[in-house]
């Protein structure tokens, strides 16, 4: 059970950041993950009055506030046009509409959960994360920050460029955590492939061997899928074995590529 002694609606990022430095205090996103924990919090810091719940389209990027809900990502026409619907596909299997109206982008990324559909997709969008103290950094660098880092995620920046994206996940049952999650993007012939829910956190791969140099064909997609499945490390848990995940990964990567090819 989550016990909270004080509740504060931060009036500024500085106030939220300063309060968050104390180990017994905690920042609230949608609170869905926090609430599953058994802990006593001194001060819960609510960011809901800081205007971080907006998706702003600028000339060269989308700026997505930390408090934007997963449902808002799912329904956003600009983000879905940019990603050919991969944004909606990545989040629409997460529990239910009422859940996604609460769960935030900030909480989803800051937790850097192994099972995260969200982290998996954003890794292939060349996204940047703005932290209040550490500043702007590539999402991959953010993913590597020590878990003890006490910063405040302010927004996520997704560059607007011509890219082709596909997201696919495999679940044992609808609305459950993914068994494997996979995102692929192609920008100017450069491919990025993220594999999440291994069950460890998403990792990103490029086409090191140039298997896709000659374009996407059934054969090159299959070869790339197998190569990624070999390079990624998988583990076993109650949802699936490492061997099963590896097999599924190869198939999902191939399917992502074929969907990218077919548009």
């Amino acid at each position, binding site marked *: 059970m*989550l*016990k*909270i*002694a*004080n*509740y504060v609606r931060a009036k500024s990022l500085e106030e939220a950041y300063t309060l968050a430095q104390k180990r017994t205090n905690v920042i*609230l996103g*949608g*609170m*869905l993950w926090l*609430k*599953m924990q058994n802990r006593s919090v001194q001060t*819960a810091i*609510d960011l*809901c009055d800081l205007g971080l719940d907006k998706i702003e389209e600028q000339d060269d990027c989308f700026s997505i506030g930390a408090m934007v809900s997963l449902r808002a990502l799912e329904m956003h026409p600009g983000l879905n046009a940019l990603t050919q619907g991969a944004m909606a596909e990545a989040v*629409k299997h997460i*529990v*239910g*509409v*009422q*859940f996604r*109206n*609460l769960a935030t982008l900030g909480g989803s990324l800051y937790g850097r959960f192994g099972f995260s559909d969200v982290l998996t997709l954003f890794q292939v969008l060349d996204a940047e994360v703005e932290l209040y103290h550490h500043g702007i950094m590539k999402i991959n660098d953010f993913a590597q920050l020590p878990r003890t880092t006490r910063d405040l995620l302010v927004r996520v920046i997704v560059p607007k460029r011509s890219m082709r994206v596909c997201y696919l996940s495999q679940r044992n049952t*609808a*609305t459950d955590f993914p068994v494997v999650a996979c995102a692929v993007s192609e920008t100017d012939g450069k491919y990025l492939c993220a594999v999440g829910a291994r069950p460890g956190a998403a990792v990103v791969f490029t086409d090191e061997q140039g298997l896709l140099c000659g374009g996407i064909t059934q054969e090159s997609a299959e070869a790339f899928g197998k190569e990624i499945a070999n390079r990624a490390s998988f583990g076993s848990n109650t949802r699936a074995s490492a061997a099963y995940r590896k097999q599924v990964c190869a198939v999902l990567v191939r399917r992502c590529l074929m969907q990218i090819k077919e548009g």
Partner: protein
Amino acid sequence: MEIKVTLNGKKMVASVEPDTLLIDFVRHHGCLSVKRGCETANCGLCTVLMDGVPVLSCSVLAARANGHSIQTLEGLQEEANEFIGFIADQGAEQCGFCNPGYVMNTIALLRENPDPTDDEIKAYLAGNLCRCSGYEGQLRGIRNYLNWKKEAHNG
């Protein structure tokens, strides 16, 4: 701490603890249709509308509801009455425990998308679990209601 909320159209000022959950707050104020099912944000039983948007009241602090409007089934009887008979006609439910959350989310669905396809209904209601039925009866009920509405409008 003190919060100001509009609960089913009624403005109120109330005193809550920093960790009071919205589900406990609305139940304390007589909205007993809001049920505690899983309490792990999985079942949809505790669905309420916050500023018209469906959320899980088991996972929201009452403190966050400060300044917002909350609606439960108690305040939406008329809107619900339109279609719950169609669900009952199908014998869709057995114990009925899931019903309030199901009805609340169906109201949210039909406000957002008044003419949904079967796939859209299933996708929107995916976060409402029912342990007795196979969901088909509820789906048929909503479909019959939508057909009835179309026929009524077309004269």
